[in-house]
C-alpha cells in the first residue's frame, strides 16, 4: 500500500491517487468539521473546501510526519475553519476555483461561522505530553530536521523521532475518537 506521501507525489499528475488519499481521510476531516460546526451542510462544504485546497497546494506538501498526510490535512482543515470564522461565511474559494461548487449542487449551509468554531481547535495537540507536542510542533509545523528537533529539545535525534511518532499516534487516535463522537 502506498504511503500518503507517495500518493501526494503521484497526485501531481494523477487525480486517482488524490482520490485515494481522500478516501483515507474524508471521514476524519468531515468529523473534524462536524464536531466544530455541529451542522451537517457546513461540515460537508468545509470538507470539500479542505480537500480542494489540499489539491491546489499538493505540490507544497513536505513529508515531515513519516509519510503521513494527516497532520498536513488537519492543518488545512484548521485554516479553512479559521478563514470561515474570519470572513463570517463558509470558505469556498478553492471549491469555486475548481468549479466544484455548482456541480456539487448541495443544499447550502445556513449557519454563520462564529468564534465558537475555533474553540478546542488545537485541543488535540494541547492534550499531548509536552515533550511530544513540542517535538511535533518543531518537526511538523516548523519543518525542522530531526537533528534540529533534537538540538531544540536537548535530546538525541533518535529520541526526537520517537516523540514525533508517539505524538502522531496519539493524534491519530484522538481524531478517530472525534470522528466516532461526531457520528
Amino acid at each position, binding site marked *: 500500500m502506498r504511503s500518503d506521501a507517495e500518493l501526494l507525489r503521484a497526485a501531481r499528475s494523477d487525480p486517482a491517487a488524490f*482520490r485515494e488519499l481522500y478516501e483515507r481521510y474524508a471521514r476524519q476531516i468531515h468529523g473534524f468539521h462536524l464536531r466544530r460546526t455541529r451542522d*451537517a451542510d457546513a461540515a*460537508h462544504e468545509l470538507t470539500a473546501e479542505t480537500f480542494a485546497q489540499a489539491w491546489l497546494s499538493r505540490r507544497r506538501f513536505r513529508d515531515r510526519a513519516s509519510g503521513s498526510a494527516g497532520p498536513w490535512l488537519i492543518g488545512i482543515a484548521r485554516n479553512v475553519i479559521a478563514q470561515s470564522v474570519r470572513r463570517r461565511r463558509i470558505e469556498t474559494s478553492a471549491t469555486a476555483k475548481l468549479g*466544484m461548487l455548482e456541480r456539487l449542487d448541495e443544499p447550502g449551509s445556513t449557519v454563520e461561522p462564529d468564534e465558537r468554531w475555533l474553540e478546542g481547535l488545537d485541543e488535540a495537540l494541547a492534550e499531548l505530553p509536552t515533550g511530544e507536542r513540542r517535538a511535533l510542533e518543531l518537526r511538523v509545523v516548523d519543518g525542522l530536521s530531526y537533528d534540529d528537533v533534537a538540538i531544540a529539545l536537548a535530546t538525541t535525534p533518535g529520541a526526537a523521532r520517537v516523540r514525533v511518532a508517539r505524538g502522531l499516534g496519539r493524534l491519530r487516535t484522538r481524531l478517530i475518537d472525534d470522528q466516532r463522537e461526531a457520528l
Partner: protein
Amino acid sequence: MDATSTRLERIAVELEAAARRDIARRRSPRRRLALVAVALAILAPAAAFAGERLISTTAADVAESMPAGTLSLAGTQPTCTVVTADVEYHCTLAKAPAPEVSDWKGTVEPTVDAMKHGERRLPLAR
C-alpha cells in the same frame, strides 16, 4: 450507505473530476502563452525621449531591435506597424517568446540600434 457516506462519495467524484479538469488546463501553458503573445504594443512615451530621437525610426527597425535587445524574444520573428511615429508601435510575434516568461504585460524591454550602440528601453504593453 448512510447520508454522510453518500455526500462524501459525491464530493469524491466531483473532486476527482475537478482535478482532471485542473490538470488538463495546466498542461497547455504554451498554447496560452502564444495567445497572449500574438499582439504586443510597444509604447515609447515621448517624454522618455525628450531631447533625442529614437534611433530606430522605422517599424522594421523596431521589429529587428526587439530580439537584439531581449534574449527571450530571439526567434519570435516580430513584425511591427507604426501606431505613432517614434512613440508607439504595434508588434506581432510569429512565435511565442521564451516559455519562462509567462506575462509580458507592463514589462520594459531594451532595444538595440542597428549600429549596436547603446540601448533604449521601451515599455511593452499588451
